[in-house]
């Protein structure tokens, strides 16, 4: 399994039956492949529906039915179409159990930066600020470092997407929970030593006695 698969498989365990979940573009979209059969989650697409189904066959593509990344998708029975106001009522109003997003930087206070690099790259926040601000649980799912650059910091240096909103960080190296005391490494991937994980993390990691292997 490559890093992305490890991360997606672990994220999939975060959900319980009936959860309403928004998955960011990229890595998070792999998560549904790993969800237990007896757990049914409702996937929310911020451009205006719940019940995202699998990607359509090439000859079944419907130009009117795309996800928030603009890619063709399908809708499952029980899915619902709505407008952008309702879509963000769901997000901002606290009706989303979890959102899973990538990050450029995340820090030990639970701050998250993923919408711009001043002077270099400004894609915009899209729905990310709403997702980070509104979801009950904000899960950052990403590779632990980016080409050697550290991304889990003591303090984000890039403009924030949300302040103190991240609940959990899941990487190929482990699972970190944001707590009032700081970042707690609750699970680690035994392919790495704790020293390797600490070296790949600028933030201080609290290692609890009951740390588990990541599964």
């Amino acid at each position, binding site marked *: 399994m490559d890093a992305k698969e490890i991360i997606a498989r672990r994220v999939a365990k975060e959900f319980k039956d009936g959860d309403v979940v928004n998955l960011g573009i990229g890595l998070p979209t792999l998560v549904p492949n790993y969800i237990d059969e007896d757990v049914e989650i409702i996937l929310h697409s911020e451009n205006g529906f719940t019940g995202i189904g699998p990607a359509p066959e090439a000859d079944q593509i419907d130009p009117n039915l795309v996800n928030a990344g603009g890619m063709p998708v399908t809708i499952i029975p029980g899915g619902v179409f709505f407008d952008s106001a309702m879509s963000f009522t769901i997000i901002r109003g606290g009706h989303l159990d979890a959102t899973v997003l990538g990050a450029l930087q995340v820090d030990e206070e639970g701050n998250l930066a993923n919408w711009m690099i001043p002077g270099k790259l400004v894609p915009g926040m899209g729905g990310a600020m709403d997702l980070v601000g509104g979801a009950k649980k904000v899960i950052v799912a990403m590779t632990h470092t980016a080409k050697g650059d550290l991304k889990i910091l003591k303090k984000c240096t890039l403009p924030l*997407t949300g302040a103190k909103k991240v609940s959990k960080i899941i990487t190929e190296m482990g699972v970190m929970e944001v707590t009032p005391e700081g970042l707690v490494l609750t699970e680690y991937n035994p392919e790495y030593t704790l020293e390797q994980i600490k070296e790949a993390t600028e933030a201080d990691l609290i290692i609890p006695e009951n740390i588990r292997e990541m599964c």
Partner: protein
Amino acid sequence: MKKLVSIEEAISKIEDGMTIMIGGFLACGSPNKMIDALLQKGVKDLTIIGNDTGFIDRGIGKLVVSGQAKKVIVSHIGTNKETGRLMNEGKLEVVLVPQGTLAEQVRAGGAGLGGVLTPIGVGTPIAEGKDHLIIDGKTFLLEKALRADVALIFGSKVDEKGNVYYHESTRNFNPLMATAADFVIVEAEEVVKVGELDPHLIMTPGLFVKQIVKA
């Protein structure tokens, strides 16, 4: 009142310097014929309010590439490199707004409300310079209502009175924008007789719509 007009007649309403709302999400549910007519007319110095700047060759993005927009108010520009380039060169003003905030601002403009009190963006760069209100101990940003001179929306089925049905994920910002402009033009994929649409399936009452053009 006859609302169905030619694209030429509808486009004649749009003048240099106007503020225009354009529906769609990454060009899904955008009024593409009207956008092409704007390109052909060459109207300039537009302020465009939309979810995103689409692509260089699709959706709102075409009006960015053509240089007809002097300002865009959107949530995302990452799928259209020209937006970023023109912004960096100082040729285009870009106001980035969280998607859910943008939806509520447009809705507020249509609903006669003064603005939106949202928790989204507190503690991030977008909060700078904006009024913060503390209500029952929680902090909210005051984001002002948005209105436009003209809204260009796209409807899947439109009856001759301007009642609009949006299919699947084409709905997005369209029904919100239909309420928030002085002059609303809907580009209809299909025009139907009055009475053909189920009155429960009409998502924009015809009273909001001034003119209908055929897609």
